[in-house]
């Protein structure tokens, strides 16, 4: 963390730019992108035999789609992309910690091997 106390940064980076709708366009496009991804997700259910996600690949595909959606929302809608990096770091601390810790915990339940846990 390199936070120096005297960065001359305005409170909100998004300030100013009065009557600037260009960002709105980005938002709409992002939403469309997200919608498309969601449609693909739904297709994994509607057409389970589609070669891309048949059998073992289903879960990886879903996880990737989920991750892309997840990060798109936090980066664009939640402005992490435009904001100070410290926010990203703080959020990642929680996120990564949660993912690691809970995966480790599920592993001790041997949940990844079918039918063994319980």
């Amino acid at each position, binding site marked *: 963390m390199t936070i120096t106390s005297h960065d001359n940064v305005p409170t909100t980076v998004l300030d100013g730019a009065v009557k600037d709708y260009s960002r709105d366009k980005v938002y709409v496009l992002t939403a469309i992108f997200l919608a498309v991804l969601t449609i693909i997700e739904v297709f994994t259910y509607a057409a389970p035999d589609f070669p891309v996600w048949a059998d073992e690949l*289903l879960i990886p595909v879903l996880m990737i789609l989920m991750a892309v959606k997840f990060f798109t929302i*936090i980066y*664009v809608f939640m402005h992490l992309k435009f904001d100070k990096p410290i926010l990203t770091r*703080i*959020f990642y*601390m929680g996120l990564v910690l*949660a993912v690691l810790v809970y995966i480790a915990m599920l592993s001790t339940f041997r949940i990844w091997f079918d039918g063994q846990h319980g």
Partner: protein
Amino acid sequence: MAETLTSRPTLAEADAHQAHAHIDADTNTGISNTKLGMWLFLASECLLFGGLITTYLLYKRPLEGPTPDEIFDIPFTSTSSFVLLMSSLTMVLAVSAIERGEHQRMRVWIGATAALGATFIAGQIYEFTVFVREGLGFTTSRFSSAFYTLTGFHGIHVTIGIIMLVSLVLLSLRGKIPEHKAETVEIVGLYWHFVDVVWVVIFAVVYLIPS
């Protein structure tokens, strides 16, 4: 590491100057306290939802009663996922509007966000009612408890979000959200998007991955 002998009585003068000479950024990080606070809160919410999602994953195969595959109505849940996703769009447009100082437009977008959120909740009430009718009570099996707790908890988050949104509209109508408080909208927005992001995870992990 020794430092050369420094004479520092001038420091007191430097201090005295500092207090009046203004610091341009309000804060050391350049981020307002409330926004930083909200992000910290959201980071900690990851562990809260993580715990509930983990519990669900552990318990998703019930010993008795309906199983997830039997019970889920994917077309319906997909629609409600869309609804929540689009509410994120309207939310971000509201933030963008207030940053430009367009109060009326901001209220419209926030109103739309709240309405879509309420629609999502309606969908959840519907879904829960149907599941209960189909024989999946809260106490039926380990799966049912875990499922209702996780999604219900998310639903409570959405509800709190809607309350905040409607309150924003009402306050804005009373002129309590002037430009310099535009950040309040952004912060409520952060919360809203986070709730959406949690649903993205729930939708994939709970609904789409077959058990």
